[in-house]
């Protein structure tokens, strides 16, 4: 008999299912059940009772539930419902948050860097993972894996998903920006063909250049003139990219922060604006979640403190935040916890669990401290 598992879940999840689920896990893992977008830990609940399950009658077309039997049937005969199976118990599901740290560490086994780019074909495939490999090893749903890969700016090369070395990415981005300045290209309308050929001349692969454009910007719809060739045909090779202003600003901010880790805020803002390409406007708001500002006397100083380097587990995240600063104002705290994921728990619930909120007077903003 085939139908032996019963699953217990909430009504919302039923619609989320699209009626096809997969159970994932290696021999040493605890099995999880994945829908197309969520992942659940499985608990098998045994029952000492006899559980008979019955499908609805298929041919009669009458009631949906097969147990509507009546001794006084009008035709005089008895209707039958067939028990398909006797279940020994059921599976209870508890939603779990996706583990993106494991994804990052798997993809970090073989980072795609300068050496990789110059090679034509990579020799061994150990430490390289395809989409299917990742789904199985990480026990994630497809949507969650997609999200994870996107948040890490991973790129698919030769069927394998790769994490590009950060320094290398910054290098490529810097070159794109330099070329743009040199050739007077607009950052809102970079022609893929031109950018790729300029960087290929310096030894960078087209894949990496396009991945960089996709990570720091987006494709724009073609301007009519740019796309049409002289004979009136549509030139499909004329992809045009617009760089995201925030990413451009962040790139130059990171350069400044790597040259000196502490800056007087005014000095930083001046140097930052100076380095930016013309027409690009920077603002300190762009650095939320990446820097912290503290007042020392009459001066304000900033230093790097990136949410990307903090643990993703809520308990560990709050511990790390309170180690850095015992007291937080909401405005400063928010960018460091907005990405936290705990199934079934809202941000407010997490704050309640891990912090103590005080508000000295009605006019001053609330302060959060460790619980």
């Amino acid at each position, binding site marked *: 008999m085939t139908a032996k598992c019963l699953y217990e*879940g909430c009504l919302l999840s039923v619609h989320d299912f699209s009626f096809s689920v997969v159970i994932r896990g290696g021999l040493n893992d605890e099995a999880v059940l994945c829908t197309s977008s969520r992942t659940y830990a499985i608990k098998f609940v045994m029952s000492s009772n006899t559980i008979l399950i019955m499908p609805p009658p298929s041919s009669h077309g009458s009631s949906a539930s097969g147990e509507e039997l009546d001794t006084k049937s009008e035709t005089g005969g008895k209707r039958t419902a067939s028990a398909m199976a006797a279940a020994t118990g059921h599976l209870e599901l508890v939603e779990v948050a996706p583990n993106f740290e494991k994804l990052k560490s798997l993809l970090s086994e073989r980072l795609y860097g300068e050496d990789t780019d110059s090679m034509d074909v990579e020799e061994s495939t150990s430490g390289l993972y395809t989409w299917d490999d990742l789904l199985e090893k990480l026990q994630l749903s497809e949507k969650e894996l997609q999200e994870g890969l996107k948040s890490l700016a991973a790129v698919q090369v030769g069927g394998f998903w790769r994490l590009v070395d950060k320094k290398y990415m910054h290098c490529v981005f810097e070159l794109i920006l330099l070329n743009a300045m040199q050739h007077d290209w607009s950052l809102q309308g970079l022609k893929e063909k031109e950018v790729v050929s300029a960087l290929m001349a310096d030894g960078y692969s087209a894949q990496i250049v396009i991945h960089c454009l996709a990570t720091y910007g987006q494709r724009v719809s073609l301007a009519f003139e740019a796309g049409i060739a002289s004979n009136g045909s549509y030139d499909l090779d004329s992809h045009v990219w617009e760089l995201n202003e925030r990413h451009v600003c962040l790139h130059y901010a990171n350069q400044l922060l790597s040259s000196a880790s502490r800056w007087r805020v005014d000095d930083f803002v001046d140097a930052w604006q100076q380095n930016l390409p013309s027409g690009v406007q920077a603002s300190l708001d762009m650095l939320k979640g990446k820097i912290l500002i503290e007042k020392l006397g009459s001066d304000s100083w900033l230093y790097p403190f990136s949410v990307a380097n903090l643990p993703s587990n809520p308990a560990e995240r709050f511990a790390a935040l309170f180690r850095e600063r015992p007291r937080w104002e909401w405005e400063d705290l928010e960018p460091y916890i907005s990405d936290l994921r705990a199934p079934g728990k809202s941000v407010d619930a997490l704050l309640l669990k891990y912090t103590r909120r005080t508000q000295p007077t009605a006019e001053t903003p609330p302060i959060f401290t460790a619980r």
Partner: protein
Amino acid sequence: SECREWALLELQGVLEIQPSAQHLPLNAFSIGSLCRSQQEKYYFTIGYHELEGKKVSLKKPMLVLQKVLREDPIDVESSPVVLSTQYPTQVQKTSELKAIGIIRHKILFKTRPKALISK
């Protein structure tokens, strides 16, 4: 939609199948008669026992899952795994599961069976 509502009957105790018939699927047997009275009481007669029960809504609905059988031979070492109901902690070769039914209510029989005197 292929996910229609199924029924669930829960009985305390065990249905014993005679050894000579144990190879047959469950739906080959006529287990008993189920009736519903006007007072929303359910009666399940198995052999000469009558059980009384009532319909209960499940707090959380259940889905009936069925393995999607693959046609190609499966390589045990590299294939994904599924939970076995008999040995929950072990893993066996598998494929996907499809939801083929949803259960929102159950008819629960938990009183002592009444012995019927045959005519």
